């Protein structure tokens, strides 16, 4: 495994921090619109539905500063982003008003995943075959896509919070 920080170019880390901030802004925009347009404002009101829908969450266990395993952390970050890419794709058709916001979020998440993957390739720590996002629930009604949107956006914000912290730690001179 890689030694922390030293092996990651500063420009890569700064770009990642920039991308995380952008995705957080996109995610917040989606949450705001779901609340304004569909009155779905609190993920806590949708926990039961979340269990039933079976929305998976991405872990960043190798990224905590105590047990930082850089290679594992990068690949967890990458597969987490792939998972959210898949979840966001499953939300397609959420509603005409939200479609542009959802598309932008999906594009930025995909860009961030590509950025991480290419850095892993440059470091020679990328697995031969790029992983896929695993099983993704299908949302069968407009309401489920909106409720799913609230839950996915909320989970994504928590995931990004963790990612931001580790990237900041790695970017510290």
């Amino acid at each position, binding site marked *: 495994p890689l030694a922390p920080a030293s092996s990651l170019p500063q420009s890569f880390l700064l770009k990642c921090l920039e991308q995380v901030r952008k995705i957080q802004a996109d995610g917040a925009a989606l949450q705001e619109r779901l609340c304004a347009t569909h*009155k779905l404002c609190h993920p806590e*009101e*949708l*926990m*039961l*539905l979340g269990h*039933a829908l079976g929305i998976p969450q991405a872990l960043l266990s190798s990224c905590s500063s105590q047990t930082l395993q850089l290679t594992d952390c990068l690949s967890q970050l990458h597969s987490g982003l792939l998972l959210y890419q898949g979840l966001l794709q499953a939300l397609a058709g959420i509603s005409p008003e939200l479609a542009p916001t959802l598309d932008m979020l999906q594009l930025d998440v995909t860009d961030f995943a590509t950025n991480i993957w290419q850095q892993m390739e440059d470091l020679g720590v990328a697995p031969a075959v790029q992983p896929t996002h695993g099983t993704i629930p299908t949302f069968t009604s407009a309401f*489920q896509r909106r409720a799913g949107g609230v839950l996915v956006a909320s989970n994504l914000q928590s995931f990004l919070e963790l990612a931001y912290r580790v990237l900041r730690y790695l970017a510290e001179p």
Partner: protein
Amino acid sequence: GLEECGRIKVSAPVVRLGDPITASCIINQSCSHLGPEAQILWKLGAELQPGGRQQRLADGTQESTITLPHLNHSWALLSCCLRWGNSLQILDQAELQAGYLPATPHNLSCLMNLTTNSLICQWEPGPDTHLSTNFTLKSFKSRGSCQTKEDSISNCVPENGQSRCSIPRKHLKLYQHMSIWVQAENALGTRASPQLCLVPMDVVKLEPPKLWALDPRPEVAPPPPGCLRLRWEPWKPGLHIEQKCELRHQPRLGAASWALVGPLPFKTLQHELCGLVPSTAYALQMRCTRWPLPGFWSDWSPSLELTT
């Protein structure tokens, strides 16, 4: 497949404003692992709605039914919820809409516009129905008094929400009768305006001619006092149409109303106006109409100012 936790069914997704609406919500057994007596609650927007009647169905699922006596919002969100710990969980949501049947569109009128070469029709849509209402201008080619339908004409769909539509030249037979009406449609029903039976060219509205002072020519004696000479240029797209025109004039200053002169045969292209107050500035305007065949008067031309 995904286990649905709860599913709302409504008597009708759209009702008339103020009418009652009934909804039922079925909680799937797997979702209500919360214990048999999970209580289903209803929210309209953010407000809890009392009056849900809950029962356990043969297959073990729970069903709650509620009737909202008067739906007074044109748009509202009805939520089926479940108490879970100290939180209220939303299991499904239905968008309720209420509004009015479309009013019968009225005051349908059409003009044949030779600049755009299209038949432009407009109408009064009537009051807001609070529902998405589509207006379509329908027509068919016919004979005489439009009793029989000869060829259909493709529908004319107005641009976003406008109460006018243009039927392009290629869909028109300019000298044949056609029947035209407007149809308004929303989720509650359809209403059609009375039918117009018209011949496009008979509702042509021309543009006014261009007025010019008649340039003085050496070989022609100047206009006698109290007289004015003017000429006009007919509107190009209307050159093939026989017309009659009218001239009106009024002193530029003072409150005298317009004096009318006509009909002037439109082909003469010039006119000498006499009987005016000498050394006075006059405003002159002209309009024309298809004649003797039917048509609408053009607007009055912009003013030409001449001094006697």
